[in-house]
């Protein structure tokens, strides 16, 4: 288990006074100190870690957020922001000596602007809530993480959430046009708007995926798209993951960017089929769902092309959806893959590495070996279009040492992802979970530069400490330049 920083007892002992000060900012029920009520916030989607916060605060206005943060800054109190609490990396894990700042009451859509194809919303609106607000006019919001019914768009910004349509339609970062951000000192900052590029340094891009360490988002402007005329899916079964991987590469090589390309391995196929009866073939090692969207003529044409490529790559099952109902059935199994795996094991641990697509067979092979070594089963779900791999490690938390083994197994998978040219996390965030693995991907110099950026926003490291960085250096220490003054000899530096 990962360790969080030691709570500051001086802050813990001031709990009553802090709650009083917060009540002056957020009146009524917005300040929670009751221990039973605080339990609701003790964990996010990474349920192995639990810690009730010192106090939970649920502000309703940007001004309240600003005042709460200013108070915390002045009094040196840590703050953990929280959206819907669906993070799978412990991004919203509270601190015993920190305030939990819940954005759940920021749940209104502020403006639907079809003329500029965007929606302005408060951060607590769910991902699906954006699409629901514009669906009547035939529009939708493209990033669609599996948790879209529950996860908030503020949390999507914090984690740069993706979904199954990333390759064609981008991640959150490609679909955010504007933000209102409150900095730790209470400063309210507006970045971007309804225009396409924000100007100045790309604070939108930096904030997206910053996991609540740089500021608190209080408003988002998101790009919406017109829904495609049609969408059809192909269900393709392969005798090996290598052949499925070849098929993906060949589809891309043919210049086809599919709306979605999802792969499942045998254990994931079986779990999903047992759960939702989607009609998946059970005699294959890898299942690929390829979705094509656009005008009917284009989709029909591409379905034929992809079918031919799949056949040449060795597909033994190939079915194209002929109705919307059938298309949704194809997806039902994939979308239910996590809960399906949850049915066959008391607990599962979901990993989130990204790899170069071509390395999939090697990585799956090594994961199988590790599965034997650690004595734990694993099912793999893979966003094949963008290389994002979600191994689900099956374990039983009631068995001594199984969680520990699952965590070590998971860490080894992520190290493997980095080793083959990939990264630790594609869309779930580093959070607490992968914090101590950052060193496998980044050198000290890399991490120091990231932390200097953190210092530009939050010099006292009060926002979400204990997440992302294995150790937080003091900003003063990071700011020093170690130089040896000298002349300009550089014998080997070409100069003109």
């Amino acid at each position, binding site marked *: 288990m990962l360790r969080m920083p030691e709570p500051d007892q001086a802050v813990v002992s001031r709990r009553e006074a802090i709650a009083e000060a917060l009540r002056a900012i957020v009146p009524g029920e917005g300040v929670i100190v009751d221990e039973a009520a605080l339990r609701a916030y003790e964990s996010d989607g990474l349920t192995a870690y639990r810690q009730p916060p010192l106090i939970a605060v649920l502000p309703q206005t940007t001004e309240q957020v600003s005042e709460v943060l200013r108070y915390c800054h002045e009094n040196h109190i840590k703050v953990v922001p929280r959206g819907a609490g669906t993070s799978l990396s412990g991004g919203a894990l509270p601190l015993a000596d920190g305030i939990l700042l819940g954005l759940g009451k920021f749940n209104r859509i502020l403006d639907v602007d079809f003329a500029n*194809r965007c929606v302005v919303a408060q951060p607590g609106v769910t991902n699906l809530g954006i699409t629901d607000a514009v669906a009547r006019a*035939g529009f939708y919001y493209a990033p669609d993480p599996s948790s879209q019914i529950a996860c908030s768009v503020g949390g999507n910004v914090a*984690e740069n959430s*993706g979904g199954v349509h990333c*390759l064609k339609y981008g*991640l959150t970062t*490609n679909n955010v046009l504007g933000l209102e951000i409150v*900095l730790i000192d209470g400063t309210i900052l507006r970045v971007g*708007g309804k*225009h396409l*590029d*924000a100007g*100045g*340094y*790309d*604070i939108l*891009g930096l904030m997206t*995926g910053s*996991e609540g360490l*740089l500021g608190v988002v209080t408003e988002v402007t998101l790009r919406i798209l*017109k829904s495609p005329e049609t969408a059809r899916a192909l269900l393709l079964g392969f005798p090996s993951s290598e052949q499925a991987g070849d098929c993906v590469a060949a589809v891309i*090589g043919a*210049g*086809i960017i599919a709306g979605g390309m999802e792969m499942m391995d045998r254990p994931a196929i079986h779990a999903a089929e047992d759960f939702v009866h989607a009609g998946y073939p059970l005699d294959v090692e890898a299942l690929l769902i390829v979705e094509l969207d656009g*005008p009917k003529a*284009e989709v029909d*044409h*591409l379905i034929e092309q992809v079918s031919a490529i799949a056949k040449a790559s060795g597909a033994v099952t190939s079915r194209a959806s002929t109705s919307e109902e059938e298309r949704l059935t194809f997806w039902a199994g994939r979308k239910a893959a996590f809960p399906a795996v949850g049915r066959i094991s008391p607990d599962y641990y979901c990993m989130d590495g*990204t*790899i*170069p697509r*071509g390395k999939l067979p090697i990585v799956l092979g090594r994961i199988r070996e590790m599965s034997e070594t650690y004595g734990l089963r694993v099912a793999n779900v893979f*966003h094949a279009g*963008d*290389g*994002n791999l979600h191994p689900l490690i099956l374990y039983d938390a009631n068995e001594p040492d199984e969680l520990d083994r699952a965590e070590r197994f998971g860490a080894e998978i992520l190290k493997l992802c980095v080793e083959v*040219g*990939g*990264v630790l996390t*594609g*869309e779930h*965030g*580093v959070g607490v979970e992968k914090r101590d693995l950052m060193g496998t*991907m980044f050198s000290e*110099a*890399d991490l120091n*530069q*990231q932390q*200097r*950026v953190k210092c*530009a*926003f939050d010099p006292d490291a009060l926002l979400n400490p204990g997440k992302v960085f294995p150790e937080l250096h003091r900003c003063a220490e990071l*700011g020093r*330049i170690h*130089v040896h003054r000298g002349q300009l000899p550089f014998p*080997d*530096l*070409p*100069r*003109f």
Partner: protein
Amino acid sequence: MSTTFRPETIEQVAEAVSWAAAEETPLEVIGHGSMRGFGRPVQTGYEIDLSALSGITLYEPDELVLSARAGTPMAEIRAALAEKNQHLAFEPADLGPLYGAAAGAGSIGGVLACNLAGPRRIKAGAARDHFLGLHAVSGRGEAYKSGGRVVKNVTGYDLCKLLAGSHGTLSVLAEVTVKVLPVPEKTRTVLLHGLDDAGAGTAMQRAMNSAHEVSGAAHLPASVAAVIGVPRVAEVGAAVTAVRVEGPGVSVDYRCATLRRELADLGETSELHSDNSRLLWEEVRDVRPLLSAPDTALWRLSVPPSAGPAVAARIAAESKALYYFDWSGGLIWLALPLVGSAAADAGAALVRGALTASGGHATLIRAPAELRAAVPVFQPQDEPSAALTARVKDSFDPNRVLNPGRMYAGL
């Protein structure tokens, strides 16, 4: 005369910047120098030229990824991608000719440092959206990396985004990794003849709000359409509104025909096929209609798309500006004669004043150096944003040695 460092390795870049940081001596950072006139003028005794830090280091077409040293010529990158029928989907503008450089000059590092994007911005995003990973040297002289070679990555802060569009003021890019995509099989453009700006705004909005995946929406008022280097456009003899669709042949045929039908009530339509279509969008992308506008300041305005026509009208009411729209009205290229008060401020007060109602920002893209030194080239920021900008600058370059003053005076 300034002294030029021409490093061949990232270590040499670090060596040069370390020296500059220690001596607190400013360095002008250039790729191939084709866009040196972009931004406020930088005067330094030393410059670091990345043209020798060159070469594609990784290109895997199946993985849709390419890595190259920052000084790699764009021409080399374009050629390598074309061989595999791929491209940079953000369609980076070739701005060099605006500053007197040859067409096709410039480096991949320069494209990313300026966060360039072309007409396809409305569908595919800008350079920042395709910038996956980097090796760079901070203003402290320290080499570091960020990102990776995969599209989906939330491991640490996205410093690629931050460096895109930072004009060399935060770090010196040494090696970059970008996402590449297949070239669409077919391209076709629907032209609408004779619309005024407001009517064109309506037409572009209707096209963008359709399901036809429009990848370019521009409006050329009559005086601009007349100088476009595509005879089929120039000979219309009136304003031209252009809407582009790309993709598989069957799909493009269908979408083009449907768009023409859906826009028919607004005016006469025609269509451009392959080469003519490509040429038109190159002209729009590279600001060629305004390339040789003498004695003007060239402005680039980024506004909410629906506000474009009204913003342009406000400026045109007070000046003899030549302008056209890209990005469905969200991007206005505008050449403002340097007469009257504009002789002193390049038209900054007029141009930026026209944005206050809609939001957005204006950049002075080309003007005599003395004007670019006197007038904020990039949109002035409010106090909280300016303070954060300074702190971000200092977090990379505390001694402010990299391209000092390029974006903002004193920074």
